[in-house]
């Protein structure tokens, strides 16, 4: 089977230039230099990205900072030997040096026998609302005002809010990507991310609260809500007791389950993990692996999604890819390199993830989900709680890591917003707990799925869109 081919070559023109550097010219020059080196294939990827971050700690702004990052990443292929290089020095001299570095690295690498080709031009359907002119033009002063609103809305919930911390990130980026097969795409993206962590205090008692909100447009971002939610979680969590070490029904809010999706579930559906046999679902493609009420997609085409983009980081049009459908393992996530190993087509999942969100100028893309999306169920969170005899509601997980990935074992700490549930009612807040469990067991023990989804994203990790979820018989151990 050959390389993926698509029908039309569209050129998505950026409506307004974000950068003073002409990114297309850089790409064209890189292709020209590549051709002069006599390579078979060449790809040029230019990224221009600005991140403005306002950090809050001790209930005041402690840092206001920005990064303007421009870079070129190239891949060259000669006789199926693939080399790559990246540089931030966008002079013509550096550009030539970068191509030479990539070519030299290809020679060292040697041929990848499975390699087919860099992507051919495809039919590109633009995902709307990836770029917001208002967000793009947001000034430093206006950005600071939003951060102050996040903080002040938390402090405004009462004197018991003793400490507010968090951050506001505004990200604007523009990418241009070409290869010698005629692929030629450009896209701009904007993001706004706000997170607040609060500490409430009453006498010697303390508790913590957390909230995260994000949007692709300024109009869709609610700064007040971030602070209010975090403050209210901390206030509700005052007077916490230790939970007994035991098994409970565990209800995870979207924020909490997002940690599991990013750090535990996602890697098992990446083609590289599967090829290395370190996926706990290895050998089960096409088979039922979890409860039939579990359906999970990778969805980079949701309007407003943090992972939404029209094409992946090697220019392949993105698509909605089912990972689990009705409990059945449907697909792996591929870029062209790993797809060629399995002689299949890429799923458009080549990523060069850049913190805090968006793209980077990494020289090599890697297959990853864009935005893992869990199909909602029928329950409100209140109904999930009402139908729980003895359980725990957990709102923020932390230090979530796979331990034995080939088995799906993982550990995590429930950090904030934990509440004991008895006979369908929240009884009292509980302190931090450690959970040590197994992913296939969890997804085979799903008792209910919420009907409302949220966009969530853990610290320096991939985003997901998920409802709350209820898992049966989860052993928790108090840690404080």
């Amino acid at each position, binding site marked *: 089977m050959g390389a993926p081919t698509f029908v039309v070559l569209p050129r998505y023109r950026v409506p307004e230039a974000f950068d003073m550097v002409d990114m297309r010219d850089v790409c064209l020059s890189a292709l020209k230099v590549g051709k002069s080196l006599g390579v078979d294939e060449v790809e040029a990827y230019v990224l221009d990205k600005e991140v403005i971050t306002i950090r809050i700690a001790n209930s005041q702004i402690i840092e206001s900072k*920005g990064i303007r990052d421009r870079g070129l990443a190239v891949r060259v292929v000669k006789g199926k030997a693939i080399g790559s290089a990246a540089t*931030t*020095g966008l002079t013509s001299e550096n550009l030539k040096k970068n191509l030479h570095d990539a070519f030299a690295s290809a020679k060292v690498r040697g041929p990848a026998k499975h390699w087919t080709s860099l992507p051919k031009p495809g039919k590109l359907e633009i995902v709307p609302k990836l770029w917001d002119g208002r967000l793009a033009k947001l000034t430093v002063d206006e950005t600071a005002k939003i951060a102050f609103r996040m903080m002040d809305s938390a402090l405004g919930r009462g004197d018991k809010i003793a400490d507010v911390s968090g951050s506001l990130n505004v990200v604007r980026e523009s990418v241009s990507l070409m290869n010698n097969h005629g692929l030629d795409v450009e896209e701009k993206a904007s993001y706004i991310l706000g997170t607040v962590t609060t500490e409430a205090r009453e006498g010697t008692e303390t508790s913590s609260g957390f909230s995260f909100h994000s949007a692709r447009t300024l109009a869709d971002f609610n700064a007040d809500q971030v602070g209010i939610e975090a403050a209210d979680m901390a206030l509700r969590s005052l007077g916490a007791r230790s939970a007994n070490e035991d098994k409970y029904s565990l209800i995870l809010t979207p924020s909490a389950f997002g940690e599991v999706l990013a750090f535990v579930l996602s890697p098992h559906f990446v083609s590289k993990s599967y090829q290395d046999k370190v996926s706990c679902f290895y050998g089960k493609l096409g088979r039922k692996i979890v409860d039939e009420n579990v359906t999970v997609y990778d969805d980079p085409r949701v309007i407003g999604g943090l992972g939404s983009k029209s094409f992946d980081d090697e220019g392949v049009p993105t698509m909605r890819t089912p990972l689990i459908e009705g409990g059945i393992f449907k697909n792996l996530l591929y870029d062209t390199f790993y797809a060629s190993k399995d002689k299949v087509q890429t799923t458009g999942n080549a990523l060069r993830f850049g913190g805090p969100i968006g793209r980077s100028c990494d020289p090599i893309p890697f297959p990853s989900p864009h935005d893992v999306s869990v199909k909602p169920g029928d329950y409100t969170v209140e109904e999930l709680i009402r139908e729980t005899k003895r359980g725990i509601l957990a709102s923020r997980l932390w230090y979530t890591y796979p331990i034995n990935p080939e088995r799906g074992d993982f550990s995590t700490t429930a950090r904030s917003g934990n509440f004991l549930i008895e006979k369908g009612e929240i009884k009292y807040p509980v302190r931090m707990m450690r959970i040590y469990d197994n992913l296939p067991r969890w997804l085979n023990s799903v008792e209910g799925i919420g009907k409302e989804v949220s966009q969530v994203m853990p610290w320096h990790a991939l985003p997901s869109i998920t409802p709350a979820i209820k898992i049966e018989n989860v052993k928790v151990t108090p840690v404080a």
Partner: protein
Amino acid sequence: MDQASKMGARYADIRIERSKGEGFILENGKVEHIAIGTDEGAGVRALVQGTWGFYATSRLTTESVLKAVELAVRLAKATGVKIAAPVRLADVRVVRDKDVVTVKRRIEDYPIEERVKLAKDCDSTMRKVSSRIHKAFVAIGADKLLKIFQSTEGTQINYNYSKCYIRVEAIAHAAGLTESVSREEGGTGGIERITEPNVIEISENVAKKAYALLKAPTPPVEKLPVIMDQDYVALLTHEILGHPSEADRVLGREAAWAGVAWWKGMLGQRIGSDLLNVSDDPRIEGGLGYYRYDDEGVPSEEKVLIKDGILTSHMHSRETAAIFGVKPNAGMRASSYRFVPLIRMSNTFIKPGDWTFEEMLKDVNRGVYVVGNKIPSIDMRRCNWQISAQWAFLIEKGELTKLLRDVTVAGTAPEFFKSIDAVGKDFQIRPVPSCGKGDPMQGLHVGNGGPHIRGVATVQGTRGV
């Protein structure tokens, strides 16, 4: 810097960098990915109206750098209007110096082709051990960095750094069981950091151990005397002693993501046995956390964090040193010009004692010896911890008896540190290639370690459920 002062900055500094990195991953004898990266740019920090502004640019033109200065000042001014506690900086002496890493053999004298050959030798050594080694990974990286630091106070330091590191990993599989063992070597310096350790022998041992684990039993669930090797101690020190020593974390400034410090307000109090001595020392040549001047231009020194079990000091920036009323101790680093410096570990370790490993072992009637580290699970105060080991041995009547797989050890910081009754003399600094902090997150290489130590903790298996 003149421009920053003209625009109203009470203090400003700039880091200008140019770097090159070469890295590859070899899998089962074939180079899977290879890349060469060059990077350049400048990061400007300005203290205006009592607060910090920072802006970085990857364009090293006068125009772009002056624009970065302007934006750093504007960012500070935009948020400085409501500052309740203006930033004060502890005084430091003005320095004009250079900081050059000692290199025995330059990276360019051992070209990437040679490094690939070394990796292939490691790979074939691992796969020769058994047909049950179904995957062998070798990754080698080599980085060079030129940096200039300059401040409005007149400090200027020119840095010339290089570092090399290697990771080998063997994955063994049989009858539904998969076991992996890995090891890192490397540090600041030249190519000797990966050629002087016997990486072929290390690769063989890694593969032999992964294969042996396929037949090993899981551990008992029991509170027992535990002897920890230097690699396990490295991660325990990193998570439970190093991170809580960062003064910004003690002050609650990392509460949003990375958590707080379990010993906040406990300076001068006992937090471990008399045998527990902990320091952070950037001056250790070869450690991945080596530097002579931090990213505020402060000369580095040993920070004595815990002395004879008593919490004595924290790692500081000039700002936190002023808050605590102490001398700055050179704790500030940024992972590149792109980021504002934060208080970070350099080489953080438990100091050696006078026990031999054999003496430690002899005293244990029933216990466990844990080797290497895998995954930490930590509460947000970094007090309660659970860290899995690469493998372990059961200790019975003073002897290592059975190899154990899938072992984790759990404890609570003060209880465990007070239980330490033996500290070895076999001190090592181990490379820790990925430490994350900040928002946006900054990944950084650090060194952590110590000698073998012995204490009491809960041993259990790592299988979920």
